[in-house]
């Protein structure tokens, strides 16, 4: 039976009518139109559907709607304002953290939460915190490195297109 649920998504209060056991994943994607969150397996294994629930990463495919009543939900769309890109998102792209991109929104929200807890995480802290999200493309090395660049532990390898275009003086 449908009920009304009130919660906060990316800082905005929302009210959703739905079945109590509706998956938060479907609510976010279909009802709220926030398609940045992906479905990879539907059983909490791949982590592509990760969102933050009261600041902690959860698989939104395993979270029933009734459970988010009154909660704070953050999706990838809430990491930066709609027409902007946060520094984490920029560095993640320039340092090779992204390939196919299907896991990337989940990686971004999870790493955001990680950095709130460990501002300069070690690789083992990253491994422990982020291992719930599978990436099949990168082998994870460039994801580690992007985090290390973002947190000032490593020198950036990416270069700006403008710098390349301007090149050395003629």
């Amino acid at each position: 039976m449908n009920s009304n649920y009130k919660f906060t998504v990316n800082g905005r209060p929302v009210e959703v009518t739905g079945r109590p056991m509706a998956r938060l994943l479907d609510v976010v994607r279909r009802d709220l139109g926030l398609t940045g969150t992906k479905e990879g397996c539907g059983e909490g294994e791949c982590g592509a559907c990760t969102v933050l629930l009261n600041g902690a990463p959860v698989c939104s495919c395993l979270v029933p709607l009734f459970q988010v009543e009154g909660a704070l939900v953050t999706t990838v769309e809430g990491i930066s304002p709609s027409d902007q890109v946060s520094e984490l998102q920029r560095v993640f792209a320039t340092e090779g953290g992204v390939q196919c991109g299907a896991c990337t929104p989940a990686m971004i929200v999870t790493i955001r939460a990680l950095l709130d807890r460990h501002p300069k995480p070690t690789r083992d802290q990253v491994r422990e915190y982020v291992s719930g999200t599978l990436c099949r493309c990168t082998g994870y090395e460039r994801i580690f490195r992007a985090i290390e660049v973002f947190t000032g532990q490593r020198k950036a390898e990416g270069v700006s297109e403008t710098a390349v275009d301007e090149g050395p003086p003629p």
Partner: protein
Amino acid sequence: MNKRNAVGQSILRPDGLDKTTGRALYLDDLPENGCWHGVTVRSPHASAVIMSFDVSEVNDPEARVVFAKDVGRRNSVHLIHDDWPVLAEARVNHVGEPVALVAAPTLARARTAAQAIAITYQEQTPVLSLDDALAGDPRTNGRLNVLAECAIEHGDAALGFTQAHLVIEGEYSTGHQEHAYIEPHGVIATPALDAQGAFTGIDIVGSLQCPFYVHKALTYLFDLGPNAVRVRQSVTGGGFGGKEDYPDMIAAHAALLARACGKPVKIVYERHEDIIATTKRHPSRVRHRTGVARDGSLVAMDIDVLLDGGAYITLSPVVLSRAVLHAAGPYSCPNVRITGRVLATNTAPNGAFRGFGAPQTLFAVERQIDRVARTLGIDPFAVRRRNAYREGDETPTGQVLTESVSAIAVLERAAGATGFRERHAANEIARQNRKDDGQPLPGIGLSLFWHGSGFTGNGERRMMSKGALRLGDDRKIEVLSSSTDFGQGTEGVFRQIVADACGVSLRDVVVHPPDTAAVPDSGPTVASRTVMVVGGLLHRAGVKLGQTLCTFAAYQADLAPASVILRGGFFETVHARTPFAEVAKAYLTVHGPLTVEAQFQPTPNSTFNEETYQGDAYAAYGWGANVVEVEVDPDTFAARVTRLTTVSDVGQVIHPVMCAGQVEGGALQALSWGYLEEMKMKDGRYVNDRLQTYLIPTMADAPDMETILLENPTIHGPFGAKGVGELPLDGGAPALVQAIENATGIPLCALPATPERILEASRFLS
């Protein structure tokens, strides 16, 4: 011309920010605009005759059901041989084979209708493994059911064995591997209808690697002209070969339903369905007989390759071809005989998976080389260094390696960067004196491998791919090709190649999305061919486009054509520097848009004979060496990879960060195929047919990686670049298994190196 500004620079990939912000729209993110939903009814049996179809319990008046009888006479996926039915008609040959399709206005209604369809079967004895297949196939009256075969003869193997100091034999096997791209298959098919509502064509948007494969399959299926079918790629969340051939199938299904209901139809697979229905890496069994001299030199090799093709031929002949062509490894041997066969089984067809047959045969030959080393008491580095190809050596197909040969370079660099020889030797000694104290056992392993770039043999000559550049009214140079990006960064590297080929800025180059209605057929995005082959076409087109504009600029300035050059975004003469956009604007005003097309040009004097398997198998080869470090738990035999060092010669690095990303991502897929990923089967059904039970590496499993890229350029690629996509798949598993052997003394011959398999091998040893 050809000055490198952009090539070699790690610029932001064009899709990077859309992907990190979640704005990139994948198939399931696209607006549905009232489309219907399709579901597939699949066989529960591995081998059965279909006795009856019954739709009387389907109560939804709007639901549309499609069976084989509704498909028409061209009921096959048009790929190499037309033996793969779009829908099974009289019999089913594997669990998960599509038997019926249902479309309805909602997914829930489509599922309900699908569940109401009753199909009865009479089961038969299935062929489920290479052992079953070798015992004879009921479908071919008990004879061997051979889907493809080929053989290579080089020198005189029989004579070579008589001259050998020792003859060493070994048998090696590998299993299925699931691609596990994070975005499952998905497609939307929109029908074109005439005024009377009759079906006249189809528009496909999908998560796919090869738009023109889908185009070819659908024009064949519906017997339509080329303009009646249009195929576009949506942002694609991984492929690894898994979206090479299967999109033909799912697009055909959606198109059949769209024709039946007259509405756009969307099909998106759930993970479980994706795993049971789609292709896997071919399981293999490779037998080696190797004759060696006292010093470890190879004298004769006899190699027999068997691949499990699954139920239909699909891409198996070309997978086999690449498998046998890589089977002797990057090693010189005067007398070689290689035979290869693909046998049919009753499992889902095995197909393209990054590496395409080579990882299987390279695992076998690397293990065999280790066996040679062990038998002769030589270390793994020395035996490889002694036999590795040098420039001027001849491969088993008689191809003389005249350029860009880096086997020794990558091997020495990998060993040097890791202290391999000393550490391997130290572990061997430590193992002899080991106390049983429960401490993890350290091991280190080395592999050497090669990978042919581009299609095998005459593939490129047959394809005659095209690529084009178009200077349009916006004064941008637009790249027109059918090469798809499903993670590799194709769009970015094409811009870099074209910018430098023309001599313009990156901001002057844009890439048209793959769309069969708007781009020429540059061939499929497979076989490590995108940068070397298609990038090469775009490079040629770019040089020509630059020259055309220089000629124009010279004419405008009343100068000789040769006195103007275009570089760094400026037309330069001795007197002046004019921005590209200014000359482009003038050109467009006078002549209108400029399109320059380039088509594949075969290397003069290069041939390959597909009957004798003699000639130039590949235009160029990438070379790699891996060093894998492991710790093995002495009680549980669980292996953990602690560090991976890769050395790869890719000719020329176009984009260092993305190139390294290809190597690292491929290498982890290779390692996990080596010790983690195992598709278990019972009665023809994959037992672990979901991500909860089919394990791929998490970040906790990922070792730290050192990625060394070497540049030994080839004349066959743009700026010397060779392919990098598949090379990283070839060396992880054998180096890992050698490292486990170094740690435990247990030589494994079969993948994956799970604790169970190591334990079994240890029992055999004692």
